[in-house]
Protein backbone atom coordinates (compact mmCIF):
# COMPACT_ATOMS: atom_id res chain seq x y z
CA UNK A 1 0.00 0.00 0.00
CA UNK A 2 2.84 2.32 0.94
CA UNK A 3 4.63 1.71 -2.38
CA UNK A 4 1.52 2.49 -4.38
CA UNK A 5 0.95 5.67 -2.40
CA UNK A 6 4.61 6.70 -2.80
CA UNK A 7 4.44 6.09 -6.54
CA UNK A 8 1.30 8.19 -6.79
CA UNK A 9 2.63 11.03 -4.65
CA UNK A 10 4.11 13.12 -7.51
CA UNK A 11 0.81 12.92 -9.38
CA UNK A 12 -1.10 13.73 -6.20
CA UNK A 13 0.98 16.90 -5.83
CA UNK A 14 0.43 17.60 -9.51
CA UNK A 15 -3.34 17.28 -8.96
CA UNK A 16 -3.80 14.98 -11.92
CA UNK A 17 -5.30 11.98 -10.14
CA UNK A 18 -9.03 11.18 -10.28
CA UNK A 19 -11.05 12.46 -7.30
CA UNK A 20 -11.46 9.02 -5.78
CA UNK A 21 -7.71 8.39 -5.83
CA UNK A 22 -7.08 11.88 -4.46
CA UNK A 23 -9.38 11.06 -1.54
CA UNK A 24 -7.56 7.77 -1.00
CA UNK A 25 -4.22 9.58 -0.99
CA UNK A 26 -5.53 12.08 1.57
CA UNK A 27 -6.47 9.17 3.81
CA UNK A 28 -3.03 7.61 3.31
CA UNK A 29 -1.35 10.86 4.30
CA UNK A 30 -3.23 10.75 7.58
CA UNK A 31 -2.02 7.29 8.53
CA UNK A 32 1.41 6.97 6.98
CA UNK A 33 4.03 9.24 8.55
CA UNK A 34 6.73 8.37 6.00
CA UNK A 35 4.47 9.31 3.12
CA UNK A 36 3.43 12.46 4.96
CA UNK A 37 7.09 13.42 5.39
CA UNK A 38 7.69 13.06 1.66
CA UNK A 39 4.60 15.10 0.92
CA UNK A 40 5.67 17.84 3.32
CA UNK A 41 9.12 17.87 1.73
CA UNK A 42 7.73 18.26 -1.79
CA UNK A 43 5.36 21.03 -0.77
CA UNK A 44 8.10 22.85 1.12
CA UNK A 45 10.30 22.59 -1.98
CA UNK A 46 7.52 24.06 -4.13
CA UNK A 47 7.13 27.02 -1.79
CA UNK A 48 10.85 27.58 -1.52
CA UNK A 49 11.18 27.52 -5.33
CA UNK A 50 8.39 30.03 -5.66
CA UNK A 51 10.01 32.20 -3.02
CA UNK A 52 7.19 32.42 -0.50
CA UNK A 53 5.99 30.56 2.55
CA UNK A 54 2.23 30.60 1.95
CA UNK A 55 0.83 27.71 -0.03
CA UNK A 56 2.04 26.60 -3.43
CA UNK A 57 -0.22 27.05 -6.44
CA UNK A 58 -0.49 23.25 -6.70
CA UNK A 59 -1.65 23.00 -3.10
CA UNK A 60 -4.23 25.72 -3.59
CA UNK A 61 -5.44 24.09 -6.82
CA UNK A 62 -5.87 20.71 -5.13
CA UNK A 63 -7.59 22.18 -2.11
CA UNK A 64 -9.88 24.39 -4.14
CA UNK A 65 -10.80 21.43 -6.36
CA UNK A 66 -11.89 19.54 -3.27
CA UNK A 67 -13.75 22.49 -1.77
CA UNK A 68 -15.39 23.09 -5.13
CA UNK A 69 -16.65 19.49 -5.16
CA UNK A 70 -18.21 20.08 -1.76
CA UNK A 71 -19.83 23.25 -3.05
CA UNK A 72 -21.13 21.28 -6.02
CA UNK A 73 -22.55 18.77 -3.61
CA UNK A 74 -24.12 21.73 -1.80
CA UNK A 75 -22.63 20.59 1.48
CA UNK A 76 -20.77 23.78 2.33
CA UNK A 77 -23.19 26.35 1.03
CA UNK A 78 -26.38 24.86 2.42
CA UNK A 79 -28.27 27.34 4.53
CA UNK A 80 -29.80 25.24 7.24
CA UNK A 81 -27.73 22.12 7.01
CA UNK A 82 -24.79 21.03 9.08
CA UNK A 83 -21.35 21.79 7.81
CA UNK A 84 -18.85 19.04 7.39
CA UNK A 85 -15.23 18.56 6.58
CA UNK A 86 -13.54 15.85 4.68
CA UNK A 87 -9.80 15.98 4.88
CA UNK A 88 -9.80 13.40 7.62
CA UNK A 89 -7.37 15.02 10.03
CA UNK A 90 -9.71 14.75 12.98
CA UNK A 91 -11.67 11.57 12.75
CA UNK A 92 -13.99 12.20 15.63
CA UNK A 93 -15.10 15.58 14.34
CA UNK A 94 -15.51 14.17 10.88
CA UNK A 95 -17.56 11.24 12.14
CA UNK A 96 -19.93 13.38 14.12
CA UNK A 97 -20.41 15.98 11.43
CA UNK A 98 -20.63 13.40 8.66
CA UNK A 99 -23.39 11.64 10.58
CA UNK A 100 -25.23 14.94 10.85
CA UNK A 101 -24.70 15.57 7.14
CA UNK A 102 -25.92 12.11 6.26
CA UNK A 103 -29.04 12.37 8.37
CA UNK A 104 -29.91 15.97 7.65
CA UNK A 105 -28.75 16.44 4.10
CA UNK A 106 -28.39 13.32 2.04
CA UNK A 107 -31.81 11.78 2.18
CA UNK A 108 -33.28 15.13 1.18
CA UNK A 109 -31.06 15.92 -1.75
CA UNK A 110 -30.72 12.55 -3.40
CA UNK A 111 -34.37 11.78 -3.22
CA UNK A 112 -34.95 10.97 -6.86
CA UNK A 113 -35.40 7.29 -6.29
CA UNK A 114 -37.83 5.56 -4.03
CA UNK A 115 -38.17 8.42 -1.61
CA UNK A 116 -39.22 12.03 -1.59
CA UNK A 117 -37.45 13.31 1.53
CA UNK A 118 -36.37 12.75 5.11
CA UNK A 119 -39.92 13.11 6.46
CA UNK A 120 -41.19 10.46 4.11
CA UNK A 121 -38.30 8.18 4.96
CA UNK A 122 -38.97 8.60 8.67
CA UNK A 123 -42.66 7.88 8.32
CA UNK A 124 -41.97 4.87 6.15
CA UNK A 125 -39.44 3.61 8.70
CA UNK A 126 -41.97 4.12 11.49
CA UNK A 127 -44.54 2.09 9.54
CA UNK A 128 -42.01 -0.65 8.93
CA UNK A 129 -41.09 -0.74 12.64
CA UNK A 130 -44.55 -2.10 13.46
CA UNK A 131 -43.54 -5.69 12.78
CA UNK A 132 -40.25 -7.54 13.30
CA UNK A 133 -38.05 -7.05 10.28
CA UNK A 134 -34.35 -7.61 9.89
CA UNK A 135 -31.38 -9.76 9.02
CA UNK A 136 -29.48 -12.25 11.09
CA UNK A 137 -25.84 -13.02 10.37
CA UNK A 138 -24.39 -16.24 11.68
CA UNK A 139 -20.75 -17.17 11.97
CA UNK A 140 -20.15 -20.76 10.89
CA UNK A 141 -16.97 -22.50 11.87
CA UNK A 142 -16.26 -26.24 11.78
CA UNK A 143 -19.89 -26.84 10.80
CA UNK A 144 -21.10 -25.08 13.93
CA UNK A 145 -22.68 -21.70 14.53
CA UNK A 146 -20.22 -20.00 16.85
CA UNK A 147 -21.91 -16.59 17.05
CA UNK A 148 -24.75 -14.65 15.55
CA UNK A 149 -26.02 -11.09 15.45
CA UNK A 150 -29.21 -9.44 14.28
CA UNK A 151 -29.97 -5.99 12.98
CA UNK A 152 -33.11 -4.44 11.61
CA UNK A 153 -36.05 -2.21 12.35
CA UNK A 154 -35.87 -2.69 16.11
CA UNK A 155 -32.16 -3.27 16.59
CA UNK A 156 -30.05 -0.66 14.92
CA UNK A 157 -26.58 -1.88 15.77
CA UNK A 158 -24.87 -5.03 16.93
CA UNK A 159 -21.46 -6.66 16.87
CA UNK A 160 -20.51 -10.08 15.55
CA UNK A 161 -17.26 -11.80 16.41
CA UNK A 162 -16.18 -14.51 14.01
CA UNK A 163 -12.89 -16.35 13.49
CA UNK A 164 -10.79 -15.57 10.45
CA UNK A 165 -11.63 -18.99 8.97
CA UNK A 166 -15.35 -18.56 9.59
CA UNK A 167 -18.12 -18.20 7.06
CA UNK A 168 -20.96 -15.73 7.34
CA UNK A 169 -24.50 -16.86 6.59
CA UNK A 170 -27.36 -14.42 6.16
CA UNK A 171 -31.05 -14.89 6.83
CA UNK A 172 -33.97 -12.48 6.63
CA UNK A 173 -37.11 -12.12 8.70
CA UNK A 174 -40.24 -10.20 7.75
CA UNK A 175 -43.24 -10.57 10.03
CA UNK A 176 -45.21 -7.79 8.42
CA UNK A 177 -48.21 -8.27 6.16
CA UNK A 178 -46.37 -7.02 3.08
CA UNK A 179 -43.31 -7.91 1.09
CA UNK A 180 -40.10 -6.12 2.15
CA UNK A 181 -36.81 -5.67 0.31
CA UNK A 182 -33.42 -6.33 1.90
CA UNK A 183 -29.85 -5.59 0.88
CA UNK A 184 -26.54 -5.81 2.73
CA UNK A 185 -23.46 -3.77 1.88
CA UNK A 186 -20.20 -3.42 3.82
CA UNK A 187 -17.82 -0.55 4.44
CA UNK A 188 -14.31 -1.52 5.50
CA UNK A 189 -11.93 0.25 7.86
CA UNK A 190 -10.44 2.18 4.94
CA UNK A 191 -13.84 3.45 3.86
CA UNK A 192 -14.07 1.14 0.83
CA UNK A 193 -17.47 -0.22 -0.13
CA UNK A 194 -17.51 -4.02 -0.02
CA UNK A 195 -20.36 -5.90 -1.64
CA UNK A 196 -21.46 -8.89 0.35
CA UNK A 197 -22.56 -11.99 -1.57
CA UNK A 198 -25.24 -12.54 -2.77
CA UNK A 199 -25.70 -8.74 -2.91
CA UNK A 200 -23.69 -7.02 -5.62
CA UNK A 201 -23.88 -3.79 -7.61
CA UNK A 202 -25.64 -5.81 -10.32
CA UNK A 203 -28.32 -7.44 -8.17
CA UNK A 204 -31.58 -6.11 -6.83
CA UNK A 205 -32.57 -6.06 -3.19
CA UNK A 206 -33.87 -9.42 -2.04
CA UNK A 207 -37.67 -9.59 -1.85
CA UNK A 208 -38.60 -11.07 1.54
CA UNK A 209 -42.16 -12.34 1.47
CA UNK A 210 -44.58 -11.45 4.25
CA UNK A 211 -44.42 -13.72 7.27
CA UNK A 212 -41.00 -15.23 6.52
CA UNK A 213 -38.86 -16.08 9.53
CA UNK A 214 -35.11 -16.65 9.30
CA UNK A 215 -35.20 -17.17 5.57
CA UNK A 216 -31.62 -18.35 4.94
CA UNK A 217 -29.78 -17.22 1.83
CA UNK A 218 -27.69 -19.73 -0.04
CA UNK A 219 -24.49 -17.70 -0.44
CA UNK A 220 -21.89 -17.64 2.30
CA UNK A 221 -19.26 -15.00 2.78
CA UNK A 222 -15.82 -16.04 4.04
CA UNK A 223 -14.45 -13.90 6.85
CA UNK A 224 -11.16 -13.74 4.95
CA UNK A 225 -12.98 -11.69 2.32
CA UNK A 226 -14.57 -9.46 4.95
CA UNK A 227 -11.46 -8.59 6.91
CA UNK A 228 -11.34 -6.90 10.27
CA UNK A 229 -13.22 -3.68 10.83
CA UNK A 230 -15.94 -4.31 8.25
CA UNK A 231 -19.31 -2.76 9.07
CA UNK A 232 -22.28 -4.42 7.43
CA UNK A 233 -25.15 -2.09 6.69
CA UNK A 234 -28.47 -3.88 6.56
CA UNK A 235 -30.82 -1.93 4.30
CA UNK A 236 -34.55 -2.72 4.33
CA UNK A 237 -37.26 -1.01 2.35
CA UNK A 238 -40.93 -1.25 1.52
CA UNK A 239 -40.13 -0.65 -2.17
CA UNK A 240 -37.74 -2.43 -4.55
CA UNK A 241 -34.28 -0.97 -5.07
CA UNK A 242 -31.12 -2.24 -6.65
CA UNK A 243 -27.43 -2.51 -5.91
CA UNK A 244 -26.44 -0.31 -8.83
CA UNK A 245 -28.29 2.63 -7.32
CA UNK A 246 -26.73 1.99 -3.91
CA UNK A 247 -23.24 1.75 -5.45
CA UNK A 248 -23.73 4.99 -7.37
CA UNK A 249 -24.88 6.95 -4.33
CA UNK A 250 -22.11 5.62 -2.16
CA UNK A 251 -19.58 6.60 -4.81
CA UNK A 252 -21.03 10.13 -4.87
CA UNK A 253 -20.82 10.31 -1.09
CA UNK A 254 -17.20 9.16 -1.14
CA UNK A 255 -16.37 11.71 -3.83
CA UNK A 256 -17.85 14.37 -1.59
CA UNK A 257 -15.50 13.18 1.16
CA UNK A 258 -17.98 11.45 3.47
CA UNK A 259 -16.48 8.85 5.75
CA UNK A 260 -19.09 6.12 5.27
CA UNK A 261 -17.73 3.93 8.02
CA UNK A 262 -18.49 6.66 10.56
CA UNK A 263 -22.14 6.90 9.64
CA UNK A 264 -25.15 5.49 11.45
CA UNK A 265 -27.09 5.58 8.20
CA UNK A 266 -25.77 5.39 4.68
CA UNK A 267 -26.74 8.26 2.37
CA UNK A 268 -29.23 6.16 0.40
CA UNK A 269 -33.02 6.35 0.22
CA UNK A 270 -33.73 3.26 2.28
CA UNK A 271 -35.99 3.79 5.30
CA UNK A 272 -34.74 1.08 7.65
CA UNK A 273 -31.01 0.84 8.15
CA UNK A 274 -29.05 -1.02 10.77
CA UNK A 275 -25.43 -2.01 11.26
CA UNK A 276 -23.52 -5.12 12.24
CA UNK A 277 -19.89 -4.50 13.10
CA UNK A 278 -17.70 -7.48 12.28
CA UNK A 279 -14.77 -8.30 14.52
CA UNK A 280 -12.28 -11.06 13.92
CA UNK A 281 -12.28 -13.37 16.94
CA UNK A 282 -8.75 -14.19 18.13
Amino acid at each position, binding site marked *: *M*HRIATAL*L*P*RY*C*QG*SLPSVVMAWMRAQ*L*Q*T*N*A*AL*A*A*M*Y*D*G*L*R*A*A*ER*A*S*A*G*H*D*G*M*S*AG*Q*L*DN*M*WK*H*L*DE*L*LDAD*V*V*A*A*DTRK*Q*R*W*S*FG*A*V*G*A*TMGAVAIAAAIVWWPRSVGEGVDGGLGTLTSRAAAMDQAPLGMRVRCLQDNKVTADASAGARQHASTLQCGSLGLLAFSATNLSQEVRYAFVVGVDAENHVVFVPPFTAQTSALAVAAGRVDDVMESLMPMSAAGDGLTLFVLMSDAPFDGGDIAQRLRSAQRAGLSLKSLDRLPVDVPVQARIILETAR
Partner: protein
Amino acid sequence: VTVPLEEDRSWCAAFKRGDRGALERVFRFYAPHVARFVRAQRFPEHDVESVVHEVFVKAFAAPARASWDGVRPFGAWLTTMTRNWLIDHARKHKRVLLLAPEDMPVRADDKASPERAAEHGVLVQVLDGFRAGLSVDEAALFDTRFAQEQSIRAAAHTLGWSEIRARKYDTALRSRLLECLRAAGFLQHVQIRIGQSLMARKPQEEEL
Protein backbone atom coordinates in the same frame (compact mmCIF):
# COMPACT_ATOMS: atom_id res chain seq x y z
CA VAL B 1 -6.00 39.27 -6.18
CA THR B 2 -4.24 41.91 -4.14
CA VAL B 3 -7.06 43.74 -2.37
CA PRO B 4 -8.42 42.42 0.94
CA LEU B 5 -12.05 41.41 0.88
CA GLU B 6 -13.35 44.20 3.10
CA GLU B 7 -11.87 46.84 0.78
CA ASP B 8 -13.56 45.62 -2.38
CA ARG B 9 -17.32 46.14 -2.00
CA SER B 10 -18.37 44.19 -5.09
CA TRP B 11 -16.21 41.27 -4.08
CA CYS B 12 -17.54 41.51 -0.54
CA ALA B 13 -21.18 41.41 -1.74
CA ALA B 14 -20.46 38.48 -4.04
CA PHE B 15 -18.85 36.61 -1.15
CA LYS B 16 -21.85 37.19 1.10
CA ARG B 17 -24.13 35.89 -1.68
CA GLY B 18 -21.94 32.77 -1.93
CA ASP B 19 -20.91 33.47 -5.50
CA ARG B 20 -18.56 30.67 -6.54
CA GLY B 21 -16.00 32.93 -8.18
CA ALA B 22 -15.82 35.14 -5.11
CA LEU B 23 -15.40 32.15 -2.82
CA GLU B 24 -12.51 30.93 -4.94
CA ARG B 25 -10.88 34.37 -4.84
CA VAL B 26 -11.32 34.49 -1.07
CA PHE B 27 -9.85 31.03 -0.72
CA ARG B 28 -6.82 31.72 -2.92
CA PHE B 29 -6.15 35.05 -1.25
CA TYR B 30 -6.55 34.05 2.39
CA ALA B 31 -5.59 30.35 2.48
CA PRO B 32 -1.83 31.09 2.54
CA HIS B 33 -2.36 33.44 5.54
CA VAL B 34 -4.33 30.80 7.43
CA ALA B 35 -1.69 28.20 6.51
CA ARG B 36 1.09 30.37 7.98
CA PHE B 37 -0.91 30.79 11.15
CA VAL B 38 -1.44 27.04 11.51
CA ARG B 39 2.19 26.24 10.65
CA ALA B 40 3.23 28.37 13.59
CA GLN B 41 1.72 25.58 15.68
CA ARG B 42 4.17 23.13 14.07
CA PHE B 43 1.57 21.14 12.24
CA PRO B 44 2.95 19.06 9.36
CA GLU B 45 1.92 20.27 5.95
CA HIS B 46 -0.91 17.85 5.25
CA ASP B 47 -2.40 18.61 8.67
CA VAL B 48 -2.05 22.31 7.86
CA GLU B 49 -4.08 21.62 4.74
CA SER B 50 -6.70 19.77 6.77
CA VAL B 51 -7.10 22.67 9.16
CA VAL B 52 -7.16 25.26 6.38
CA HIS B 53 -9.73 23.19 4.55
CA GLU B 54 -11.87 22.83 7.65
CA VAL B 55 -11.70 26.55 8.37
CA PHE B 56 -12.83 27.42 4.85
CA VAL B 57 -15.63 24.88 4.89
CA LYS B 58 -16.83 26.65 8.02
CA ALA B 59 -16.24 30.13 6.63
CA PHE B 60 -18.07 29.38 3.39
CA ALA B 61 -21.19 28.05 5.09
CA ALA B 62 -24.11 30.45 4.78
CA PRO B 63 -24.42 31.23 8.52
CA ALA B 64 -20.75 32.21 8.69
CA ARG B 65 -20.96 34.35 5.55
CA ALA B 66 -24.00 36.06 6.99
CA SER B 67 -22.28 36.63 10.33
CA TRP B 68 -19.40 38.59 8.80
CA ASP B 69 -20.43 42.24 8.75
CA GLY B 70 -18.32 43.19 5.72
CA VAL B 71 -16.57 45.90 7.74
CA ARG B 72 -14.21 44.08 10.07
CA PRO B 73 -10.95 42.89 8.46
CA PHE B 74 -11.80 39.54 6.92
CA GLY B 75 -8.30 38.15 7.59
CA ALA B 76 -8.68 38.77 11.32
CA TRP B 77 -12.15 37.21 11.28
CA LEU B 78 -10.74 34.13 9.57
CA THR B 79 -7.80 33.97 11.95
CA THR B 80 -10.15 34.06 14.93
CA MET B 81 -12.07 31.19 13.38
CA THR B 82 -8.82 29.25 12.92
CA ARG B 83 -7.70 30.02 16.44
CA ASN B 84 -11.01 28.79 17.87
CA TRP B 85 -10.82 25.69 15.74
CA LEU B 86 -7.34 24.90 17.06
CA ILE B 87 -8.40 25.45 20.66
CA ASP B 88 -11.53 23.32 20.26
CA HIS B 89 -9.52 20.60 18.61
CA ALA B 90 -6.88 20.63 21.34
CA ARG B 91 -9.57 20.41 24.02
CA LYS B 92 -11.48 17.62 22.34
CA HIS B 93 -8.40 15.53 21.66
CA LYS B 94 -6.58 16.44 24.86
CA ARG B 95 -3.67 17.83 22.87
CA VAL B 96 -1.29 20.54 23.94
CA LEU B 97 -1.00 23.56 21.72
CA LEU B 98 2.48 24.88 21.12
CA LEU B 99 1.27 28.40 21.78
CA ALA B 100 -1.20 29.05 24.56
CA PRO B 101 -4.43 30.59 23.23
CA GLU B 102 -3.58 33.93 24.82
CA ASP B 103 -0.18 33.92 23.08
CA MET B 104 -1.56 33.20 19.64
CA PRO B 105 -1.29 36.15 17.29
CA VAL B 106 -4.49 37.93 16.42
CA ARG B 107 -3.48 38.01 12.78
CA ALA B 108 -1.43 35.61 10.75
CA ASP B 109 2.20 36.61 10.92
CA ASP B 110 3.76 37.02 7.50
CA LYS B 111 7.28 36.71 8.84
CA ALA B 112 8.78 33.25 9.16
CA SER B 113 10.28 32.20 12.49
CA PRO B 114 14.13 32.12 12.63
CA GLU B 115 13.96 28.34 12.66
CA ARG B 116 11.80 28.28 9.55
CA ALA B 117 14.01 30.84 7.87
CA ALA B 118 17.05 28.61 8.47
CA GLU B 119 15.19 25.60 7.17
CA HIS B 120 14.18 27.59 4.12
CA GLY B 121 17.82 28.57 3.48
CA VAL B 122 18.94 24.92 3.51
CA LEU B 123 16.11 23.96 1.21
CA VAL B 124 16.95 26.70 -1.27
CA GLN B 125 20.52 25.39 -1.45
CA VAL B 126 19.29 21.86 -2.07
CA LEU B 127 16.96 23.11 -4.79
CA ASP B 128 19.72 25.12 -6.47
CA GLY B 129 21.82 21.95 -6.61
CA PHE B 130 18.86 20.00 -7.94
CA ARG B 131 18.17 22.50 -10.70
CA ALA B 132 21.82 22.60 -11.71
CA GLY B 133 21.69 18.87 -12.43
CA LEU B 134 18.66 19.08 -14.72
CA SER B 135 18.65 18.98 -18.50
CA VAL B 136 17.67 22.14 -20.40
CA ASP B 137 14.09 20.91 -20.90
CA GLU B 138 13.72 19.78 -17.31
CA ALA B 139 15.13 23.05 -16.01
CA ALA B 140 12.68 24.99 -18.18
CA LEU B 141 9.78 23.00 -16.79
CA PHE B 142 11.10 23.37 -13.25
CA ASP B 143 11.16 27.14 -13.66
CA THR B 144 7.66 27.39 -15.07
CA ARG B 145 6.04 24.91 -12.71
CA PHE B 146 7.93 25.56 -9.49
CA ALA B 147 9.37 29.06 -9.63
CA GLN B 148 6.58 30.71 -11.64
CA GLU B 149 3.88 28.36 -10.31
CA GLN B 150 2.19 27.95 -13.67
CA SER B 151 -0.43 25.27 -14.18
CA ILE B 152 0.43 22.27 -16.35
CA ARG B 153 -1.59 23.77 -19.19
CA ALA B 154 0.07 27.18 -18.92
CA ALA B 155 3.52 25.62 -18.58
CA ALA B 156 2.93 23.46 -21.66
CA HIS B 157 1.83 26.56 -23.57
CA THR B 158 4.84 28.58 -22.40
CA LEU B 159 7.26 25.83 -23.40
CA GLY B 160 5.46 24.92 -26.62
CA TRP B 161 4.93 21.36 -25.38
CA SER B 162 1.88 19.14 -25.39
CA GLU B 163 0.11 18.87 -22.04
CA ILE B 164 0.82 15.16 -21.94
CA ARG B 165 4.54 15.80 -22.32
CA ALA B 166 4.49 18.49 -19.63
CA ARG B 167 2.59 16.22 -17.27
CA LYS B 168 4.99 13.34 -17.87
CA TYR B 169 8.05 15.51 -17.28
CA ASP B 170 6.44 17.07 -14.22
CA THR B 171 5.78 13.66 -12.63
CA ALA B 172 9.35 12.54 -13.34
CA LEU B 173 10.71 15.82 -12.00
CA ARG B 174 8.83 15.46 -8.74
CA SER B 175 10.01 11.89 -8.30
CA ARG B 176 13.61 13.01 -8.80
CA LEU B 177 13.11 15.93 -6.47
CA LEU B 178 11.88 13.54 -3.82
CA GLU B 179 15.02 11.46 -4.24
CA CYS B 180 17.14 14.59 -4.06
CA LEU B 181 15.43 15.74 -0.85
CA ARG B 182 15.90 12.31 0.64
CA ALA B 183 19.59 12.21 -0.34
CA ALA B 184 20.09 15.66 1.18
CA GLY B 185 18.63 14.40 4.47
CA PHE B 186 15.81 16.86 4.23
CA LEU B 187 13.05 14.32 4.66
CA GLN B 188 14.51 13.02 7.90
CA HIS B 189 14.36 16.55 9.17
CA VAL B 190 10.75 16.87 8.11
CA GLN B 191 10.00 13.51 9.69
CA ILE B 192 11.18 14.76 13.06
CA ARG B 193 8.56 17.44 12.78
CA ILE B 194 5.99 14.83 11.83
CA GLY B 195 6.77 13.05 15.08
CA GLN B 196 5.97 16.25 16.90
CA SER B 197 2.66 16.59 15.16
CA LEU B 198 -0.05 17.83 17.42
CA MET B 199 -2.72 16.05 15.45
CA ALA B 200 -4.01 12.61 16.32
CA ARG B 201 -2.27 10.04 14.18
CA LYS B 202 -2.47 6.27 13.87
CA PRO B 203 0.77 4.34 14.23
CA GLN B 204 2.79 4.04 11.08
CA GLU B 205 2.19 0.72 9.38
CA GLU B 206 5.23 0.51 7.15
CA GLU B 207 8.67 2.01 7.32
CA LEU B 208 10.08 4.11 4.56
